[in-house]
Each structure stands twice: as C-alpha cells, then as structure tokens.
C-alpha cells in the first residue's frame, strides 16, 4: 500500500508532511492542491514528518491537504527521441505544452510514443547479457541509438528472442530476456532511471587519454580539455561566459551535446532555439539541433526543478555514453544550482556554511563532477561524458564557496576576466591564471605527441611562460615609464602581445576565425614562436610597438582567411617581408 500524508507546514516551496507509512530519502510525492497534483521530492525525514521540496509554486496550499507518495525517485525517461528535444528541469517536453504560460501541475511526456523507429537487432537468441548490453539499434538522426538491457536489471539474462528488423514505436517489445529464475522479461526501447544516481553499466573508467577539440585556441592549445574530462568557466557578468559556452556547443567534437540552461536568462535559451536549428555541425555537416538536447530551467522557473535540471542533463549524457558515444554536457550556470541548494537549506534552518551555502556544498559539487568521465564498456568500446560548467561568482570574486568547491572538483579552469573583457580581448580567458591539469597527464602528453607533434606540451609551456614574462614587463613599464626601462623590456612585452592578439584572441563572430582546427593551431603557434625566438633591433620603443603592430595585423588577417587560401598565402608572404626588415 502506498504511503500517504497530510501537509502540516509551508514555507515557500518547502513543505512539511505528516506521513502514515515508510518514506525514502529523495522519494517523490504528489501534493493535491484543489485537484492539481504538484510534484515534490523528500529531502529530509524526522520521525513521521517528511520535509519535501515542491517543484512548483505552493501558492494556495493549505495545512491538511493530502499527499500521496510514489515509491520512486525522480527519474529520467530514456529512449530514442531525446535528441533535438527541449525539456524543463523535470524532463517535461516544453514544446508540447499548451498555452503561453507554464501551468502548474502540467506534466508532459518526454518522448513521442507514436513515432516509428527503424530497428536492427544486435543480440542473438541464446546470448548472455547484463545491464547496459546492446540488444539492437535504431537510427536517431545520423546517430546509432543502441537499445540496451535496462540499467536497473540485476544479474545475468539469456536472450530468448529479439524482434526482427523493422519499424517499431518505443513501447513495442523488442526483446524478451530470461532471468536467472527462468522468468521471461520484456524489454522495450524505453527505460527509466533515477537522475541522482550515476548510471554504471560499464567495465572500467580509466583516466582520460584524448583531447576534445573545441576549435577555440585558448582552450585546445593552451588549456586543452580531455574527452571525458571536466572543466569550469567562472567569470563576472558581461565577460562572455555564455558566448564561450555556445561556441563550445557549436564546435565541440562530440556526438551528443546536452545543454542545461540552469537558472539563467530565458532570452539566452530563445537564442539557442532561434539559432541552433539553422547552424551546421562543422564535423558532420548535419544540423546542430539533431545532436543537441536542451534542458531549460530559466531563473524564473521553480527553484527546486533548477536543482533537478543538472541531474536530468547528466543522466541523459550517461545514457548516450553507454552506447559508446562521446557526449558533452554544458551547464550554465552551476552557481544557480548551488543557490537553489542554499535557498532550501536556509528554509530547513540548517546550520549554514560559508556565505550561507549548505556545508556539504563541496561534496555535492565534486560528486556531480565525478559522474563525467571516459568509460570502457562491457563490449570493449569506449564512451565519454565531458562536462563544462559555468560559475557566476558573486561580485566577480573567485574567493567564494561555489568557485572554490568547483576548483577542487574540475580539472580545467578557464578564468574569464573583467579586465580582458573591458579591453575587448575575447575570449576573455586569462592566459596566466587558467590551467588544464590534463597537460600534466603523461597519457595526454603522449597522445598530443602523436596527434600534433613531438614535444607539443613543452612548446605550449614555453608560449605560456612568454605571456607571463610579458605581463611582468608590462608592470615594470607602467611603473617606470616607457623611457625608464631597457629596450629588451619592450621587446619582451610586445612578443607576449603578439601571442595574445594573434593566437589567444579569436573572433567568435567571424565564420573562419571562430573555428580553428588543431592542425591550424599548430601551424600558427609554430609560426608565432618562431617570431618570438628572433632577436630584433629597435632604436626606440615607438619603433618597437609600431613594428609589432604590423606583425600582429598581418597575423590577424591570416586568422580571418581560409587556411591555405590565396589571401592567406598573400599575408604569409607579407609577414615574411616584414620579418626580413628586422631581426634574425
């Protein structure tokens, strides 16, 4: 029999329920408000009192209103049709909702039950299978979408039958398995999984070994993120966090992209709806929307569902990873998620940690980041979930709990800086403070030696050091004045400016420059380092700056032109001419 209860206390969306039976942590319940069911989740139990967070507005709720517990946790519905969908944080399909306004208690089905999919069997009768093993596949867009033994299945099963190739909807039985007790179990194309639990169903999770290309130079070359790696982008408002994330979403070398718009502006999501269907994936030539799922819980939507949205997004990524696909999860912004946790902890009158955030914030964040990773599946194939989150630090100050906790959990750090943004040096990623721990991984260094060139990591380190030296020189020049320092200071400074302007800065709105393949990055970095290694002769600092400005301008023109095109070669020749004038 199901547990039921009565509402006994309400503070905003935190509701206390007196229960008449067993309840589980994170169990869902429906609160009946005048005939409308409001979904809520248990977050604390004390005696026969359960505290639940309601995923909707609690306006009009009364003490004594009835509650029905559902005996399950918040689950995602998984199956073909997830891609190109637009969901809210609880995986309601926003496109099939009626009316302009969101209606309380309106829950829509995440997947289309009518649509027919072209099914091809993979497993054979008699095969021994376990959870997450592949039974068959359908084509979802251009991606092979594997139909798997549901993740919740325990133990070994024997395949009794698999449906022949043909068209089926997601509810059709596509395989019958026999469990260890000899009972038949039917499998359809869809399954459910609790979002707050990581999907396992793989053999092992090794250290990442490859780089995920984004086409953004300051990331790929200077601070590369690994396939299956984690990174975060903190920055004050107006520094281009969202623009950078959108660039990564458009260009990231991944099969599946899940974007979680978590507590951010609705108009930014509208921009994705408007632009993405028009855009073409540079790696496959297909529409970007075909490989993208959007989870959208904007800042004015219920706070508790905001917290759920990042988990829903991660679960969808893990589901596609189990098919041997490379997934990229982008969450904007994880600070809003942390704030949702704070609001709830505050209402529960828990003792607060720093800045009133819950004390377990750090462990919640690192737990979530740990769900990313590259995995080796049971059949030996690999899949990956790469996760990049943005952080919106209060007052732009990185010494705040969310940034600090995330720094412990994420391996790449892309520090967006107000100062660079003010100077329109985009992407405003600070080249000195930012880092990628993956550059220290021997397996990644070996991969880069192979993929790009031998000794690549040392080369990158050398470029980074030059940028740092240039910064020190700039400080000296500012203190002592242009005439107060030796000429070599100016030269060192301008060499770092050359790296900054011609390599680190990138025009995200230019069709050519916005996407820079890794081979081209290698070419440009080699060229730039070659220039930086030269010794020049200048009579005064004005001559020095004027000369470097010409070099920078020519290199930037190269960036704007197609690699190897006539115009590109023209500027390359022009560069040689300028170089011939001075130095050796």
């Amino acid at each position: 029999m199901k547990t039921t209860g009565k509402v006994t206390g309400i503070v905003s969306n935190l509701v206390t329920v007196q229960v008449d039976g067993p309840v589980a942590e994170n169990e869902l319940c429906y609160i009946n408000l005048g005939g409308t069911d409001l979904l809520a989740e248990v977050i604390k139990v004390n005696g026969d009192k359960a505290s639940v967070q309601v995923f909707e507005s609690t306006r009009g709720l009364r003490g004594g209103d009835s509650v029905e517990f559902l005996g399950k946790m918040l689950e995602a519905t998984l199956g073909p049709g997830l891609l190109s969908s637009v969901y809210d944080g609880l995986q309601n399909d926003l496109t099939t909702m009626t009316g302009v306004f969101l209606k309380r208690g309106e829950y829509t089905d995440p997947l289309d039950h009518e649509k027919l999919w072209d099914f091809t069997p993979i497993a054979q009768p008699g095969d021994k299978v376990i959870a997450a093993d592949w039974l068959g596949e359908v084509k979802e867009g251009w991606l092979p979408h594997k139909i798997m033994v549901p993740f919740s299945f325990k133990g070994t099963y024997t395949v009794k039958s698999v449906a022949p190739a043909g068209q089926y909807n997601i509810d059709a039985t596509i395989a019958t398995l026999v469990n260890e007790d000899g009972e038949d179990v039917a499998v359809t194309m869809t399954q459910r999984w609790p979002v707050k639990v990581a999907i396992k169903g793989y053999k092992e999770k090794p250290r990442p070994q490859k780089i995920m290309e984004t086409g953004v130079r300051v990331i790929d070359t200077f601070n590369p993120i690994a396939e299956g790696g984690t990174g975060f982008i903190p920055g004050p408002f107006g520094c281009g966090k969202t623009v950078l994330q959108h660039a990564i979403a458009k260009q990231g070398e991944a099969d599946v992209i899940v974007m979680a718009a978590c507590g951010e502006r609705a108009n930014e999501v509208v921009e994705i709806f408007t632009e993405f269907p028009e855009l073409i994936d540079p790696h496959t030539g297909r529409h970007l929307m075909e490989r993208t799922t959007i989870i959208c819980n904007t800042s004015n939507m219920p706070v508790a569902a905001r917290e759920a949205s990042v988990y829903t997004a991660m679960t969808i990524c893990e589901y596609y990873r189990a098919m041997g696909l490379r997934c990229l999860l982008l969450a904007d912004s994880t600070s809003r998620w942390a704030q949702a946790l704070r609001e709830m902890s505050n209402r529960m009158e828990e003792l607060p940690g720093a800045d009133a955030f819950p004390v377990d914030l750090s462990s919640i964040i690192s737990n979530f980041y740990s769900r990313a990773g590259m995995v080796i599946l049971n059949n030996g194939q690999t899949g990956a979930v790469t996760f990049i989150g943005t952080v919106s630090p209060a007052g732009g100050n990185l010494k705040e709990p969310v940034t600090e906790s995330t720094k412990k959990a994420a391996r790449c750090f892309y520090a967006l800086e107000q100062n660079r943004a003010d100077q329109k040096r985009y992407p405003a990623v600070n080249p000195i403070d930012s880092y990628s721990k993956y550059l220290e991984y021997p397996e990644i260094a070996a991969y880069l030696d192979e993929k790009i060139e031998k000794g690549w990591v040392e080369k990158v380190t050398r470029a980074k050091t030059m940028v740092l030296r240039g910064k020190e020189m700039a400080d000296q020049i500012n203190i002592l004045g242009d005439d107060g320092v030796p000429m070599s200071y100016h030269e060192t400074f301008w060499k770092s400016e050359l790296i900054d302007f011609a390599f680190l800065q990138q025009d995200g709105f230019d069709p050519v420059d916005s996407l820079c393949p890794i081979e081209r990055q290698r070419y440009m970095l080699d060229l730039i380092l070659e220039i930086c290694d030269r010794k020049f002769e200048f009579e005064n600092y004005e001559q020095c700056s004027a000369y470097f400005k010409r070099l920078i301008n020519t290199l930037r023109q190269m960036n704007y032109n197609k690699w190897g095109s006539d115009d590109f070669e023209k500027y390359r020749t022009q560069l040689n001419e300028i170089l011939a004038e001075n130095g050796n």
Partner: protein
Amino acid sequence: MATKAFQKIYTKLDAITKATVSLRAAGVSNDELATVEGRLAQVVKTKGDLVTLQVFAGTEGIPTNAEVSFHGEPPTLKVSEQLSGRFFNAYGKPIDGGPEVEGEERQVGGPSVNPYKRRQPSELIPTGIAGIDLNNTLVSGQKIPFFADPDQPYNQVMADVALRADVDKIVLGGMGLSNDDYLFFRHAFESAGALDKIVSFVNTTEEPPVERLLIPDMALAAAEYFAVDKNEKVLVLLTDMTLYADALSIVSNRMDQIPSKDSMPGSLYSDLAKIYEKAVQLPDGGSITIIAVTTLNDGDITHAIPDNTGYITEGQLFLRADSDTGKVIVDPFRSLSRLKQLVQGKKTREDHSQVMNAGVRLYADAQNAKTKLENGFDLSDYDLRCLDYAKDYAVELLSIDVNITIDEMLDTAWRLFAKHFKPEETGIKQALIDKYWKK
C-alpha cells in the same frame, strides 16, 4: 473573500515582530492575504496551526488581541482598460481621487511564460539619448537597469526615455519614491499629455517599506494584461529596485533567516529574477520591456543587489558625472546592452556597429592619454587630439541631455571623427569610410 457567508475572526496573536505577526489558525492557504487590525498582511509561513503573516504596513501599535481575518486568496488586481491614466498604491487602490477600477480580478505574481513560446526580441526602442541608442541600443522585450549613484538624475532620464519610447503603454512601479519624485513623474506624464497611456503604482518614502514588495507584482500584472490580452507593447519602469531588495532583507531578517552576502536573503537572485524575467517578446506581437533603477553605493557594483541584478538583466546603463565637461553621461565602458546586436545595422543604418566601436575605442584612447597626463608623462600629438575629441564626444553624444535621431547620432560621430582624426586612425572598414567620411 466577499462571497464567504461567514468569516472567522481570530483575536489572539502568539508573536509580533516589526514586520510579522504569528497566530494559531486553521485551514489557511499559503500566500493568501489577511487583515490584521485593519492592515493588509500575507501568509508567509505555516507550521502546524501556527501561521506567520507579513504585515505590509508594519506592526507598530498592533496588540496581541488584534482582530485577524483571512481573505482566502493571494493579492489580486482588477484589470481592464480603465487602468490607463490612473495612479494606485501598492494594494492597487486609487490614490488619485478617482473611482475604483472595474474589471477582471487576477492574481498578481502569476506563472512564467514557457521559454519555448517566447520570441527573440527584435524591435528597436529609440530614446533620443545617444549614450543609449548609439552605444547601448534597447530592444523591446529587454530588461535593463540604470546603475546610478543616488545623486544622479536617474528618474528624470527614465521619464524622458519612457515618454520618447514608441510604446502603447507605460507602467510605472515606484518603490520608496520621495514625494517630490512622485510629483515629478506625475507632472512629467501630465504635461506630456501622455497620461492616458500610463498606469502608475506608487509607494512613497512616507509609506511603510514592506508595502513595496507588492509594487513590482502589481505593475507587472497590469503590464501582462496589456501585453498578453491586448497584444500591446508595454514599457515597465521600476524605481528603485535597491529599495525593493532592502525591503526583502527586512522581512527575511524578521523571519530569522540566515542572511547571505551583504545581509541580503539567500533567495535574492530568484526573487529579482522572478520580476525581471517577466520581460518578454510574446508570439502575438505584445511585449513587456523593463527599465529599472538600481541605486549604487559610491559606484560599487560588487554589492549583492547590483551584482545579482547584473546576472539577471540584459545589460546595464551606467550613469555618472563627467568631470571634464560637467555633464551627466551614460558611461560607455561600464554600460552594456546585451541585445543591441539584434537591431544594430538591421533596424538601423549599416555603419552603426562600426561607428559605435570606433567612437568608444577612441574615447578609451583619450582615457589612456588622460592617465599619462596625470602621471606626468609627455603626450603625443595623437594623445592631444584624443583628449579634444573626448570632450566633444561627451557633450554631443554621451550626455543624457542629447535628443536626436539615430541617423543624426551617426552623422555627429562621423563629423567628430573627421574633425579630430585621419580615416585610418578610426579603424573603420574602408567601404564605410568611402561612403560616410565627412570631407
């Protein structure tokens, strides 16, 4: 509720704080209104049969045997065309001596628009102020605050913007307005002959601060009526959101909530987002644009209120006094309109974004020259020309007393470029130089 035949009256308060009272009552619904000793209050917390009410007018003089009755529903506003031209208080009651408004009674603070049903904002809102139209163009459906120190004339600028903007309705939400500013708005609207398209909800400094919390919801409920039901373009003015946030912190403090940064409640971001995200471009042509004021403390934008606001709104307009010219200007460096690229060059002349960038870049060069000058370094000829340009640019374009069309702004900028610089110093595309350079 008027239809209730029998209304239970409670007469025993358990606890009283400066902003809240608590009592034992049954069957009370969350968010519903109540009357405590004749003052309006709202349910903010129930625990068993103990109900906590936020008393908008404050609790001064409320005795423990105060009469409390519950209304059975949250705050509402009667909406109809009759709202036009009227002034109301925070409860939606007329303060202009006119009759009560007849119309459909709607709950305020209603649900959000489904993000999938929104449209991308694309209509220009011209204001005549070059610091806005040229550098930080506004778009309908946008939400943007003025960031200004309390001594800046932000209410005047906002009134100018509202009266010049090409919109169907203007809704003013005044929170903690001084009586002088309230009369200023009233006079400005009346003398512009625009009263019939304006609806005002006003809480003045003479009235209790907690009442302010109702103002944005009231103003936006009226705005939604005109934008959703009537498909009109509505501009909502909210001043001053800093005083609104202060009222939030008063209530959360009285409810013993643990404050986060700058003694603001932990929910400040969500509370502000709920208001600002009402800005929307609707599929059927109606729109709500929000222009707000967030007063700063000595230009500090890292304080929790402007900081959270900046993360929610689509840019900010930063007002400051320019010491070189004595003018109040829209600071081109710290101001930003995130939606400007949706209209620049599309709804305005092709040279718009290039002229804007060049103008600001040269102004930045002037700032560098100024720093050099202050540090005692020698100035080059270019530096000196930049400084001259900066003065003209501030007076003719950045100053808030400018009122010209966007084409005139662009022409002015070209004239200033030609007066002070060589074409190649502007960094503008050659094709545009050939077409627009003033010889």
